[in-house]
């Protein structure tokens, strides 16, 4: 059984991770590199005598840096796939139908749990932003992902208003408590770049998770005889 989970997860994670890495390199990386010019002080936005043009020469594909990004993206989504496929196997045993189509919905729920829910209060960070202590943010991030993941399960498989009510509480609580925020704002990056970065990170994240869920469901159902 573990082998079946492992095989489906690695195939799904590698495929979704590779496509996601390419999407990120095309849509997210240029915004990040542009922001780094402000982070490093090569460009100045606030208080500058003359504003820098909004279009900058950012350099092309960097084999080492971008190659590492591709490998790490595939690793991260393989890790997520292991969790996703394991939960799919448990759900299937409880009567849920798992295939490529239902996997798409699993993917959307995965995106909400690990990307959108924490990102609602800890927005995807463009380089250079002010932020609270990293450990505090990581703890809040982990707790929020866990709460949102349980909430997604309760919404999907809960059978009573108690379960659905608990899901709503789990989704809201981390944001009512509040994420760790910096004491002062020091970000040197134009807000236009910060907003575009967050929007792109969410958009590519949704695409990544829909692919991951679809692939995971597909490979899992194909491997049924194993």
């Amino acid at each position, binding site marked *: 059984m*573990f082998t079946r989970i492992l095989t489906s997860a690695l195939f799904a994670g590698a495929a979704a991770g590779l496509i996601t890495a390419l999407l990120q390199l095309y849509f997210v990386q240029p915004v990040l590199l542009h922001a780094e010019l402000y982070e490093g002080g090569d460009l100045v936005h606030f208080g500058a005598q003359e504003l820098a043009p909004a279009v900058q020469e950012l350099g092309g594909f960097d084999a080492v840096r971008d190659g590492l990004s591709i490998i790490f993206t595939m690793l991260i989504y*393989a890790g997520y796939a292991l969790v996703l496929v394991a939960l799919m196997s*448990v759900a299937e*045993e409880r009567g849920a139908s798992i295939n490529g189509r239902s996997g798409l919905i699993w993917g959307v729920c995965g995106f909400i749990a690990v990307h959108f829910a924490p990102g609602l209060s800890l927005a995807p960070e463009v380089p250079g932003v002010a932020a609270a202590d990293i450990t505090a943010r990581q703890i809040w*991030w982990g707790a929020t992902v866990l709460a949102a993941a349980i909430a997604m399960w309760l919404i999907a498989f809960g059978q009573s208003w108690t379960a659905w009510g608990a899901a709503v509480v789990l989704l809201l609580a981390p944001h009512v408590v509040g994420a760790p925020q910096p004491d002062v704002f020091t970000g040197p990056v134009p807000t236009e770049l910060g907003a575009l970065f967050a929007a792109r990170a969410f958009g590519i994240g949704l695409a990544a998770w829909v692919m991951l869920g679809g692939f995971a469901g597909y490979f899992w159902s194909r491997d049924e005889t194993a």
Partner: protein
Amino acid sequence: MTTQTVAVKSTSRISAAILAVAFGIGIVAITGHVQAAALHDAAHDVRHATGFPCH
């Protein structure tokens, strides 16, 4: 299939699932969250793009 084999199958599925979840969380933690300098630098762009807390 007897009740006993169903129960055994179910237990093995649950333990396999728990093992896979542990592996998965381990991989995401190491690639996405551990702050060791080498890992942080190598995964820097991905951590930002994936919305993880970075730095």
